[in-house]
């Protein structure tokens, strides 16, 4: 089974990466873009024997403990089986 995890900065937290990218693309002529925020994205493969329920629990724990930093980030999970449904 596959899962996707999207990690984004909480809205109030400064995003130096996004800001620097935005500033740079402004100077090279991307006039219509008003904001850029950068996040992380993970594609995770699980053992085929894992049930959707187990997978969701495992991935949630992983996203919380490892993939994101709950102090400054939020995350969102998509299980492939679910997104197809």
């Amino acid at each position, binding site marked *: 089974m596959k899962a996707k995890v999207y990690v984004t*900065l*909480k809205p*109030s*937290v*400064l*995003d*130096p*990466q996004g*800001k*620097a990218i935005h*500033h740079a693309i402004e100077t090279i002529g991307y006039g219509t873009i008003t904001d850029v925020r*950068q996040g*992380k994205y993970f594609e995770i493969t699980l053992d085929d024997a894992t049930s959707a329920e187990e997978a969701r629990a495992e991935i949630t724990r992983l996203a919380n*403990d*490892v*993939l*994101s*930093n709950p*102090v*400054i*980030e939020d995350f969102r999970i998509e299980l492939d089986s679910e997104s197809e449904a």
Partner: protein
Amino acid sequence: MNEPVITPELVKSHGLTEEEYGRIEELLGRAPSFTELGIFSVMWSEHCSYKSSRVHLRRLPTKGEAVLQGPGENAGIVDVGGGLAAAFKIESHNHPSFIEPYQGAATGVGGILRDIFTMGARPLAAMNSLHFGPLKAGADASAEERATAARNRSIVAGVVKGIGDYGNAFGVPTIGGEVRFSPCYSRNPLVNAFTLGIVRRDQIFYGRAAGVGNPVIYVGAKTGRDGIHGATMASEEFGEEAQSKRPTVQVGDPFLEKLLLEACLEAMREGAVVGIQDMGAAGLTSSSSEMGSRAGTGIEIDIDLVPQRETGMSAYEIMLSESQERMLIVAEAGRERQVIDIFKKWELDAVVIGRVTDDHRLRIRQAGEVVADIPNSALTDSAPVYDRPVKAPDSPPAAPEVGQAEGSNEELDATFMRIVTSPTVASKEWVYHQYDHMVRTNTVVLPGSDAAVIRIKEKRNSLAMTLDSNARYCRVDPRAGARLVVSESWRNLIASGARPLALTNCLNFASPERPEVMWQFSEVIDGMSEACRAFNTPVTGGNVSFYNETDGRGIYPTPVIGMVGLVSDTRHVTTQWFKQGGRAIVLLGATSDDLGASEYVLATRGRLEGRVPALDLDLERRVGEACLKVIESGLVESAHDCSDGGLAIALSECAFSSYRRKAVGFEVNLEGGLGAAAHLFAETPSRIVVSAPDENVDTIMELAKEHGVPAARLGRTGGERLKIRVNGEPVIDRPVSEVEAAWRRVLPSMLEVASLIAAEESRTS
């Protein structure tokens, strides 16, 4: 403006007492507005006002020949000759680093870098002193202890990565520091960051808002809601609710800081800058009121002009925001355009937000209305000062005498290995390999020796610097402990070939509201002062961090000393490592029965016992003078001070390989009437191990004698083994490579996994 009504609860939630609130009303002659309440709460916080420490800090010696600027400015400054001066300071970022290790440590580095370049100095070296809880739980540990160890590992990994990423991207070499471990830091990690910069003597800048009518210019990052109430947070102990304070985390942007540095230095060179100050703790509030207060002027700010990152921010939020990478500049009237253009070249915001006034007040306007109007003195000089109760503990904290624990030589050898591999003694390479310690190509002594050394390009001299602490000693005897820490710093510089000039310090303590803690504080100040006088190394500044306490469990008193010295000729720079075989090993100073409060006691008893080592400040000074003499006369090839773990550890460290140099073994015989454990592991101060060609030994002995310093020839370098005999009897005999490998493996083996996760969490793409 719809501001909250001021209630007793609101006052309390701002960390102000009833009396303090009464004082505010008195000073203003009325009740404060909400914005004013916020301003008072940050300026009167422990972190900004030093209200508990000020009465004690006054006792520190701060004057000396080399001192150009003592405490009171953003950094201390000493003369280093040739028209140049060194600006340096240390700053704590303990609480933010507990809440968010990576960003907390990173912004700590950012803050101290700004403190240095505010003075016109280009930062040329950084160091850090780190204290953490244990990385590993014992075999029979509870689940909770294991969780604590795991949390400690992730704090270490995050902090080290945060320091590295910020300093590396900024382009300052991080060339030294210390990393120490003890259970008291488990929920109270200490992150103290030091920076040193060089400035021409005639181009020093100060944080003064001089010249009535001059424009006040805001430069750097836009203001967001970051870290609001960071300063009050650092002034409270942690409890469960620390979690809920999390959203205030500030995020650092080293790239922006690097641009800010270049732009500020350029604006200063152009001569348009009258005064400049970074916005650190308490942001715009402290920078504007302090700049006005130092110059005896006032500042008026139109809050609507402040560049804002978020919408709908109130005056309160803008004044209290701790967004990073911002500075306040007072420019010469009529030259604001020039300043703004320089910042524009570096792609930075620069906006005139106010003027210097003559009325000694901080006045804030929003939409034309005055939302705060406070006399500067109420925020600075008239801030509360407490002479808090001081009480010595009834019984000394540890049993006075410590005897030898081992019965056999095998047991002594096992103790040796236990000490070599204790995390506090083990190699810190895992940490400093993550720091760029070479950028700017000045680093003459890379991390790993007693002190780090940078050359001053195009001059003959070099600067040596060291950070030291020893909370074990300060816990057992704060006054003697502080003396010992200062003398260790002194010895580290001496062994590197430097003459110590001055020091900065960071005083990390538990809650000042407990009389025993205040007693520790007061004792540390006195011990430090005594040592500073003995060595003629005045205090040029520092920082106090109280409330390092979680759920009632406080840290050991942990003063950290950052000492800076001058090597008059770069050719005299000396490192601790034996350079080749066939050299004589000489000990300057002599070992006594000082096993108390040592790494040995921790390794064998598992807890602190005994008295701290006895220190004779005058002897320490003489050992230092003798050592400097033998170094400057070109008599020795290496010099290493003895500290944690005693002589056996010091000798091993001399033998281990370093950079492009292979390991060099040795054979020594330690003689005298002490027990074997004391010979090997006593932490007697005032001792330096040197190695030298045979033909120089007589001269070294004579010089030692002239200085009234005991000295003994211990043995020779050479071979591939580490051989220590005590009164002729072999006690330790192992391949250097084996001991070295064990010593190097400790931190990587505990931290590798934690560091992968920290890399993931730290948001570096």
